[in-house]
Structure formats: C-alpha cells, structure tokens
C-alpha cells in the first residue's frame, strides 16, 4: 500500500480565483492511497516546500502529488526539494491546475470538477511511479557560439574569460556584425567602431577563442554537454596562413563589385576584406562560379577576366589572359562564332557584350603600339621531341601549349603556308592574313619549328619520325575535301568544291569563276565561297535545300552576304548538272517543302514533284560539307577511322596507338576554330601525361556556371552594345579588304564596362601575380570541420526588413534618395562610402531637408510586421541629431506614431534632439513621390488634424528588424523553435530569457527579438554565465525518464529504430535459453545518452515491449481509468 500526499496550491489567486480549492482538497482526501491532503497559498515558496517535507515525515508519505502550475514551471523545483527527503524525486506527479484549468475556464464550478479529475489522475498515476536514478555523463568544456556580432563576441569573451574554450563561427569574412556598421551609439553618442573594434581584437587575440569566419554550422548532433557540430568552412580562395592582410591583391583586382557592407552605397573589389578594421584582417575572394562566357567557351577562355582588365585599361595583362589559353587573340577576335556572347547574361536585359571584338581590340591595339611582344617560355627546356601533323588552329595551339612547357615541337604542314583552314579556308575579308602570320610567328619565336610543303604519307611517315626520335604525334590535318552532291554530271568542268575554291583564292591564285556562280549549301563555307565569288566579280546565287531558318551558317555571315548582294534560292536542291560538251552550262533543280523534323529536330526537305527548274551557270561551287583526306595518313601507316571517316580518337584525343593523338576537324568533322583550339590544348595535356606518366586533368579547371537571373539585373542601367564599324559597302563588294574594322579604345573600354560580373571574381588572376606571399588558392574548396561542444549559444542577430516590395507608396525602391537607417549609418560613418559626409546617393549633394519615417515595416500588420521594432525610436532620434549636427542650416522632420524611450538616458536624448531642432510630426507618411528633384512626403499631423506635405531632399526609413536569413534552417539544425515572426523562442519569457527548450542551447541578442545594444550585451553576459555554470561540473545527470526495452516482449521488428528522432535505438543480438538450447535473436536496445524521452518508440511498439520510464503504459492506463471509471 503506497502512502500518497496531495498538496493543492492557491498560486496566490491564480488558481484559487478559478477553482474551489477546499472542494478539491476534500475530494482528494478520498482518493485511493491518499493518506494526507492540504492546501497552500504558495506551494513553491520556501515555507510551502517546508510544509511538504514536514508532511512527508509526519505522515510517512512515499509519493507526492503537487497540484499547482504547469510542470514546465516547477516540476524541477519540487524534484530538487524531494532530494532532501526519504522519497525518490521521481515519486512525484504535478497536476496542472493553472494553465490547463483556472486560467482557461470561466465557470468556477466546472473548473473545480476538472481540477478534481486532474488530481485524481495524478494520484492514480503516482501510485504506479517507481524510483528512477539518473546516470552521469561527462561534459565537453568547449562552447560553440554561432554569430560573430556584438552578442557573439561578448558571449565568447565572457565564456573564454571563465577559462573555457570557445569556437566563434561567423558567416561573413569578418566578425563584428551590424554594430561595426554603425557610426555612433545612442544615447551617449560614443563611436560604435571605437567600442566594438577593440572587442573584435580581443576575441582574435584571446587564447581560449577560435574564430571561424566565412563559416556556417551545417549539422549538430548530440545533447547537452556532448554536441557534435559539423561546420562548413567556405572556400575563401586565399590561404589565411600566408595572407599578410596587405592590399596588393585588392589594388590589382579589376572587378568593381557591390559593397554589401555599405549596403550597395559603394563598390569593392572581388578580392576584399569586409572593412578596413576586419578581423581577421585577411583577404577573401567572392567567387560565384565560372561566368557563363567562360563556362560555355569550348576552350574555357577567361573571357570575364580579360573583359574586366580591358575595362580598367590594362590591355597587356588582358592580352596575357587570352594567351594563357591561345596565342590567337587577333584571329579569334575576328572569326570566332563566340558562344560566350550567346550565353552572356546581358542577353537578359539588352544585348550581349561584344566579347570577341574586345579580344580583337586587345590584339590590334598591341600590334599598333608594337607591344605584340614575344611569349616567354618560363618552363625548363625538355628534350622530348613531338611531331604535330597539320598547322591548323588545333595543331598550332597544341604546339603552343607544349612549347610553353619547354618541349621540342615540330609542326609538319602539307601546304606552302601554315595556318590550315585559318589560312586557306577563311577569306581575307574576314581575316587579314597578316594578323594570322604574326600570331603564328609568336609560336615560332617560342622555338616551335614549322615545316611547310611537307605532306604526311608522301614526305614523312610515322615510322621514319619515330626513328628520328619523335616521342609523340598529334594528328590535326583538318577536313579539306568536299562531300559529293551525288547528282548526275557532277564531274563536269566548272563544278568545284568550296574548300578547293577558297584555297585557290586564299593562296592568291585568283580563280576565275565566271559571270554566273551558284553555290550549293547553307553552311559557313558556302557563305565564304559565295562572298569570295562575289568579290571576284561574279553574280552569285546560293542554293539551299531548306529554308533560311535551318541554315547552319552564322546569322551575321548570312546578313553580310545579303548586304553585299548575294542572292538566295531557299528550298531548292540540284537534281542534275547540265553540261554542253563537258563544260558546265546549267543546273536542274527542284523545289522542296519542309517535312517532319529529323533526329536533330531539323525539318528535312521533301521535293515537290513537277517543280523542277533550270538555272544557267558558269561555275557551281559545292559546299555541302567537308571530309577528312584519308589517303595521305593511310599511306603513312595510319588507318584508324570512325564510321564518318573521321580519325578515331576518344574525348581525350587518344587514338589506339599509345603515342598518337588526334583532334580538331580531323577527329570531329568540320567544326569551329575555338573547338579546334580546345582540342589542341587537350591534346597537349594528354601528350604531357603520356610522356611524363602523369594523370593531370585534360580539361582546364572549371567551376559550375554562375548564372544570373533577370530580376537580379533589373537595376542595371541599360547600355547598347558597341557598334562594329565596317568599310564602305562598295569596297566590300569589290575588294578582299577586311570588312569589319574593330573597336577603337573608347568603344572597347565602354563595351568591357557593360560586364555585369556574373561570377564576381573574373579569374583574371591578377591577384595571383600581385600577391608577394603567394597566398591565392584559385582552386580552393569548402571544408567540413567536425568538433565536439558542451554548449551552444545562438547569436545570429537580425537584418532589416526588405521594405521595397512592401511599400510602393514610398517608391518601392525606385527613388535612390529614399534610404534605410542602416544605409544612413554608412553615409554618416567616417569609414563609409562618403567618408562621413551625408550626401544624396543620387547626385552626391548635401541634403538640406531630411525626412525620417519611423515604423516602416513595423507596427504594420497589413504590409510588414505587427511588432514594435524597439530600437528605431532611439536611432531615429540619433539620425535626426546627426543630420542637424553635421549639415549646417538643415531641417529634419521626424514622422512618428509614438516615441518609445524606455531606457536610461533615452528620454533625455529624445529631448535633446528636439532641442537640436528636430521637428516631430505625429503621423504616418502615406506617400512619397518625386517632383522636380524633390521627394514630396505627404503625411498628417494628427495632433493638428491636418494633412501636411514636406518637400525633402532625402528620406530615411527606420525599418523593422527581422531575423537574419537562414535562422529557420539553423533552428531546424539545432532542434529549437521560432515564433511566427521567426524570432528564436526563449524557454520562458521571464524566468529563462536566454535558454531554449533544448538543454545546453542558449540565445543572446536580436536573434531572440528586436533589442538595442545594451540589452544585447546584457543577454550575452547572461548566456555566458549559463554556459559557465554548465561547464562548472565535470559530469551531468541525465534525465532518467527515458525508454526501456523489455527484452522478453520485444519481437525485434525494429519499428522503433526508424521512428526514433535521436537515433538512440538499435537492434542488438541477445542470447537466451529456449528449453534446452540457447538461441540468438535481435532485440531493440536504447542508448541512454542519446534517448531524449520523447516516447515515440513506446507508442510505435506493437507488443508493448518499450516503456517510457515515468510514463509507463501502466501509469498512463491508470490515469485513463481514473478519469473514465
């Protein structure tokens, strides 16, 4: 027989006013096993507790029911009390007569009935309680502080001073938080930096504090005293062990990025420190990935890089950036079909940057100023010899890359001049061959030998070359023969191949195509052939079997051809070549219509019966595709081709012969110059790997594409793409002079400055050159660090509400001179963008009339937040004071709803501001609009009862604080809760303001709710004290109210394992005797340290093999019975 004592609390009048205590007492006395019952004004008070202890002795009680407030509130109080008695602290039940009864019911009699039921249940339950004994776990005496603002710094310092280790994690590259952005602090007006920067230094120099900047908490496991945190150290691309914090890299960086620390009021470099007093004072690089221009370039040229350098007039460096990948800046600038431009983010707002033309400018400019120079080979000379077959873009670029590495390279060219298709394929009016020659000479000057008139298979063979000591071969012979039309009469005199025709013309053997020329085909070779024939005085018609939309030729080429007078016959295909005595006279063609799309999605032509027609012609140029010339190679003993007749090689340019590599048109079939260059570079890498036995990556280092969305660009000023000047149209028709003239310096720079810096860092690598201590780590990656902690303090702070989308009536962000309070702090701050001069962002003039509007986004449940943001009244007053103080004969109008100055010296400060001349107007501004350079603010002075208007030069919106971004995610990681506005919840608004409901996790500062600096610092101290108290024990008592498995009942189904949120349950093998023999089977087992006593498993367990101690199935059933029976 148990002996239960029931103690009913009045809680002053909290319970007594809603429940007839006496009735409860009378009823309780009659419950089974209740031997004693009394009531008490304040049971939790010292005398109250004493009476319980006394009763325990006097009535030999062995268990206790206390009928009082929520167990959340005082269960622990009474457990502590019982420690000093003969009763185990867990022989206690608390009946909640306050929160769940007296406070929520109005009918006292009904409330009393409910109270009695609650007590009856508690009594029934306590009757089944058993003594529980907590076990001990050791405490890791290291604290994790998340957020390096003033709250985080103060917490860290206080814990560290108490002699414990602290890791301070900050998302930004420097600690300091919002406070260092401020200029002065109310009400004392002492300089914010002067009082917060010393704290930053103290943190960094404190032996017990480890600062981790550019870091975020990724995952947290464990429990009070024993947390494991995984922290992501984001790549900074700078080795902070080497960085000296000098600004050489920043001086070298050509990129102008948005300065987030100045809230967009100023610019900073892509490599930067957050602000001059940053801690740590080390540079970081902001890299969002690879800019689309680079990412989509087959050779991954650092387009963003040389654009950025061109923008600041550093042309030689810019050219150097191009030459990291290829010496053909001038050539590519003219003939590249620039996938970079197709993918340029500016497409989303106006036109893409003219990237190719800027590259051309770099080369032309260098030539004009005689700065084309030589390309230095820094690598150690190596003695391996490499033979390259073909001197086209692929072959020469491969030679270039190998030469840069110090290899001995010989290039064999069948034709009398080097350059491959660049030389004999592309007409002079597109590419001035002097440019080509000079850029080839750059390669020769590096020691590369080019042997022309040397044809593989005829003059040389692989065998012979191997004999001469060549260790590797790169086949890049291009695709120099034409595909056949396969129509009768094709061999007639006057039918020529496009490639042959162009070669003749380009080698200066000026062919005579005659009056009427027909070009068959729709590709770029067709366009080149047509425009060449035109310049040779012919009347040219292009015959293409599909419509213009399907033409594979570059659109610009088609336009140019048309401008120059080339005619087009679309949807027409030749059927038969008509010739009189062997000499071509006409071509019989047929009209097509477009049929179903083919595999590539191109609609295939379908002949229209009976639509045949005949065109008279003197020369017919076939330009329907090129093929690889196989004869020579075969003769040279190379016979590996794919089914298209191209050389068989894999993506890494390797053929089946270990020492033979192949790339360019010869491998891929007809493609673009830039693709050939990419292939050449890959081959060079592959060959080096082969020769050195290394396995370096074949592709250049490339981050994921950094795409920019259109709405991120909506505030970028529109600017038209630079116009390409051309020679007069008559010259274009009659001469081979280069048609496009390229940009002058002014245009090129303007063009480069249109760049929106998609990836922020342009990867120009100027910083690498500038950095004396070689600290730049271009290819650095994020790092995950795992560490144990005993306690966690969250100090993630706030940000300002994004007011623009909410307040269209205030211009919705369209007026540059309507700024936020924090932006004003930067303006008035000596280290801010204006060095402390208050100037309008729009025109950098000093505003005379300044309007300050309070409660923007706060106290506005319609558009923003319902709550009062608490600090705004005071910093509003501060801003008014600063305006009046800094701007002579200025006026300041403050629109307010109420002025809330609860704080030491606050009301006096408000008084002084009015004394300074601030005009306080009680009312909310309804509209701000621009008229004649003024910002008109319409409000009501509600004290006057009249609508009022102020013409302002600048408006400062004192906007609401909201929790800093990502706090919800963090709360999820930590398993703590947030309120509807996403502020982190404290455990109790009055009694546990810096604790959360998860033991061992604490809060400080504005992550818990809007507050000012003094309150924040006070909370920080409090949180630190809590942590220190926790760390004062070496061991902690664990909660014994955890799950317990009854092995006999457990069927080992494992359902509980899955439903345990703390991964505390696992299946383990036990051995038991069944009759004579011993059998092994699996049963659930609970890790006492991990189990948090949530009871999910107990609910899930079908055989009822799991009991949550203190809430055993038995206890709960007794409760239910007590209520129902």
């Amino acid at each position: 027989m148990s002996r239960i004592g029931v103690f009913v609390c009045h809680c002053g009048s909290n319970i007594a006013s809603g429940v007839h205590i006496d009735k409860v007492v009378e009823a309780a006395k009659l419950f089974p096993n209740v031997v004693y019952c009394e009531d008490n004004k304040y049971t939790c008070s010292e005398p109250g507790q004493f009476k319980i202890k006394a009763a325990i002795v006097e009535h030999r009680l062995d268990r206790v029911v206390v009928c009082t407030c929520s167990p959340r509130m005082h269960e622990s109080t009474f457990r502590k009390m019982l420690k000093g008695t003969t009763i185990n602290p867990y022989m206690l039940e608390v009946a909640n007569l306050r929160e769940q009864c007296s406070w929520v019911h109005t009918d006292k009699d009904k409330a009393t009935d409910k109270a009695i039921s609650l007590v009856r249940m508690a009594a029934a339950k306590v009757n089944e309680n058993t003594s529980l004994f907590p076990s001990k776990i050791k405490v890791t005496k290291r604290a994790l502080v998340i957020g390096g603002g003033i709250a985080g710094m103060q917490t860290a310092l206080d814990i560290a001073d108490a002699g414990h280790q602290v890791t301070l994690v900050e998302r930004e590259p420097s600690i300091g938080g919002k406070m260092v952005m401020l200029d002065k602090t109310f009400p004392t007006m002492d300089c914010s930096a002067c009082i917060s920067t010393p704290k930053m230094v103290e943190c960094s120099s404190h032996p017990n504090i480890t600062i981790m900047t550019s870091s975020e908490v990724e995952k947290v496991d464990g429990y009070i005293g024993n947390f494991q945190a995984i922290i992501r150290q984001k790549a900074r691309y700078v080795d902070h062990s080497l960085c000296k914090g000098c600004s050489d890299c920043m001086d070298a960086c050509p990129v102008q990025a948005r300065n987030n620390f100045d809230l967009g009021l100023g610019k900073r470099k892509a490599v930067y420190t957050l602000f001059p007093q940053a801690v740590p004072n080390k540079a970081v690089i902001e890299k969002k990935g690879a800019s689309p221009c680079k990412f989509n370039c087959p050779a991954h040229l650092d387009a963003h890089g040389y654009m950025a350098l061109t923008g600041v007039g550093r042309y030689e460096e810019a050219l150097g950036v191009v030459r990291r990948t290829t010496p053909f800046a001038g050539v590519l600038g003219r003939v590249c079909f620039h996938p970079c431009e197709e993918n340029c983010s500016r497409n989303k707002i106006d036109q893409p940057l003219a990237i190719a033309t800027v590259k051309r400018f770099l080369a032309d400019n260098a030539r004009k100023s005689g700065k084309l120079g030589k390309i230095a080979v820094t690598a150690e000379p190596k003695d391996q010899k490499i033979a390259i077959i073909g001197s086209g873009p692929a072959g020469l670029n491969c030679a270039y890359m190998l030469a840069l590495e110090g290899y001995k390279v010989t290039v064999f060219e069948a034709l009398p001049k080097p350059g491959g298709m660049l030389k004999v394929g592309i007409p002079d009016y597109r590419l001035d061959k002097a440019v080509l020659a000079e850029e080839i000479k750059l390669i020769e000057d590096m020691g590369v030998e080019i042997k022309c008139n040397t044809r593989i298979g005829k003059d040389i063979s692989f065998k012979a070359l191997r004999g001469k000591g060549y260790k590797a071969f790169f086949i890049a012979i291009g695709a120099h023969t034409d595909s056949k039309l396969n129509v009768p009469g094709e061999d007639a005199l006057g039918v020529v191949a496009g490639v042959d025709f162009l070669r003749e013309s380009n080698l200066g053997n000026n062919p005579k195509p005659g009056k009427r020329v027909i070009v068959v085909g729709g590709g770029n070779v067709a366009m080149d052939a047509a425009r060449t024939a035109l310049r040779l005085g012919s009347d040219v018609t292009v015959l293409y079997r599909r419509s213009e939309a399907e033409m594979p030729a570059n659109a610009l080429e088609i336009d140019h051809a048309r401008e120059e007078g080339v005619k087009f016959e679309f949807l027409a295909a030749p059927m038969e070549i008509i010739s009189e005595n062997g000499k071509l006279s006409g071509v019989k063609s047929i009209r097509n219509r477009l049929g179903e799309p083919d595999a590539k999605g191109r609609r295939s032509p379908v002949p229209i019966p009976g639509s045949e027609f005949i065109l008279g012609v003197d020369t017919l140029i076939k330009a329907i595709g090129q093929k690889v010339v196989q004869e020579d190679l075969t003769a040279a003993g190379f016979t590996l081709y794919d089914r298209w007749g191209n050389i068989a090689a894999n993506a890494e340019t390797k053929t089946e012969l270990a020492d033979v590599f192949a790339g360019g048109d010869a491998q891929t079939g007809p493609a673009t110059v830039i693709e050939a260059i990419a292939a050449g570079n890959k081959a060079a890498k592959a060959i080096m790997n082969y020769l050195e036995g290394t396995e370096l990556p074949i592709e250049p280092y490339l981050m994921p594409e950094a795409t920019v969305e259109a709405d991120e660009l909506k505030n970028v000023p529109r600017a038209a793409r630079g116009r390409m000047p051309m020679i007069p149209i008559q010259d274009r028709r009659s001469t081979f002079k280069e048609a496009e003239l390229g940009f002058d310096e002014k245009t090129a720079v303007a063009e480069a400055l249109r760049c929106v810096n998609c990836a922020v860092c342009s990867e120009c690598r100027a910083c690498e050159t500038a950095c004396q201590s070689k600290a730049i780590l271009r290819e650095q990656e994020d790092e995950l660090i795992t560490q144990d902690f005993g306690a966690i303090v969250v100090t993630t702070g706030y940000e300002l509400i994004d007011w623009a989308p909410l307040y269209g009536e205030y211009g919705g962000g369209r007026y540059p001179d309507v700024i936020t309070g924090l932006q004003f702090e930067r303006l008035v701050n000596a280290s801010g963008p204006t060095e402390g001069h208050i100037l309008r962002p729009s025109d950098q003039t000093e505003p005379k009339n300044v309007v300050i509007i309070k409660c923007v986004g706060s106290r506005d449940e319609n558009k923003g937040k319902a709550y009062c943001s608490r600090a705004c009244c005071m910093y509003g007053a501060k801003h008014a004071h600063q305006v009046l103080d800094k701007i002579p004969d200025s006026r300041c109008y403050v629109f307010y709803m109420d002025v809330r100055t609860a704080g030491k010296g606050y009301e006096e400060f408000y008084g002084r501001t009015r004394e300074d001349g601030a005009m306080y107007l009680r009312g909310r501004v309804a509209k701000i609009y621009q008229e004649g350079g003024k910002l008109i603010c319409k409000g009501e002075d509600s004290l006057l009862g009249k609508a009022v208007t102020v013409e302002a030069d600048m408006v400062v919106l004192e906007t609401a604080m909201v929790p800093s971004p990502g706090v919800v995610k963090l709360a999820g990681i930590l398993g703590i809760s947030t309120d509807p506005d996403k502020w982190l919840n404290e455990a109790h608004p009055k009694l546990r303001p810096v604790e959360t409901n998860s033991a061992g996790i604490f809060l400080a500062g504005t992550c818990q709710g809007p507050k000012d600096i003094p309150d924040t610092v006070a909370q920080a101290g409090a949180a630190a004290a809590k942590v220190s108290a926790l760390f004062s024990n070496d061991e902690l008592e664990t909660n014994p109210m955890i799950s317990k498995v009854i092995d006999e009942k457990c069927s080992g189904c494992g359902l509980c394992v899955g439903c345990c949120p703390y991964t505390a349950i696992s299946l383990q093998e036990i051995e038991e005797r069944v009759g004579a023999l011993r059998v092994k089977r699996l049963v659930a087992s609970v890790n006492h340290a991990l189990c948090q006593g949530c009871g999910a498993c107990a609910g899930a367990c079908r055989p009822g093999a799991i009991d949550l101690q203190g809430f055993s199935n038995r206890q709960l059933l007794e409760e239910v019975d007590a209520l129902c029976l």
Partner: protein
Amino acid sequence: MEISLNTPAATLAEIGTIVDKAHVELHKCYQCGKCTAGCPMADSMDITPREVIRHLQLGLLAEVLRCEAVWVCASCHTCSARCPNEVDVAHLMEVLRQEAKKRNITPVPDVDKFARIFISNIRSFGKSHEVVLCASYNVWSGHLFQDVMTFPHLVMNKLVFFKPHVVKDKTAVRRIMDKALKGADKA
C-alpha cells in the same frame, strides 16, 4: 465646448452595428493618420478620415453622422489599401453615408442629389443617360450653368445622344431596385 464621453450604451451598440457592417474593428486603429495623409479629398473635409474613426472610438456617433467628410469621400479606397491595421476606412465611410441617408441627414446636399438623380435615371431608363443626368442635376442643384461650356463640344462631337437608349426589360430592373431599396431610403 467640452465633450462628455459617457456615451449611452444604446449609441455604443449602434456604432457597433455600423462598424460590423463595414467589417471594421475600431480598436485596431492607432490613429497614425495614414488614411488622411493619402486622402485626395482630405483638404475639402471638415474632419479628417482619421478623426471620423476617432469620433467613433470615443462613441461620438452624432458628430460623425452630421459631418461632411463622409460625403466628400470619393470612394477611391486609398486609405483602406494603405492602412497598417487593415481598417477598411472607405467601406466605413460608405456605410456611414447609408446610415446618414436613413436618418435623412445630408450635410452635402449636392452629392446626395446627384446620387438620387443618377438612380432615378436608372429607374426610368435602366441605363444612365448623361444629358438627362447633368441637365436635371443642374436644375435640381441650382448650379444651372455648371459645365455648360462643355456642352457644345459634346454635341458637335456626337458625344451625347438625345434619344436615350433603354433596357428592354425596364420592369425587371425597377423591381430589383425597389426590392433593394426597401429598408434603405427610396430614391
């Protein structure tokens, strides 16, 4: 003159029903005056929209029912759109107009006259008819020559029609109007 705030319960109840009709919770208003500040007609009002609310908060119904403000309101709804506390001021103004009409209080007679004419216009044609409308308004309101200068232009450009187009089923329209106006004041 001093105002007594010991408003009779009956009046408070009346106010209650009125604001309920407008779905307005008076206590939500903290008198910031954003409604007044944005009100295009505020200059012409005897008391500001904010003060209309304030009077009701204080239980001063009579003052509100006899003020011009609720009649000067142009129903542009700017106040309601911008109110930080979701007080539908415009709707309240409308309900107050209706209440005043019920009590035959029309402090700005012209506005009321126009409404009446407009409605009788609909009663007779089923569609509103600008000439009849303006002409009869000018007569009734005594502003005989208001906007007569515009008339020639209207005529020359055939912007007015003298043979009013009417709905076929006039009776239907009338029946609806009469039913609707039962309770409200007959136009």
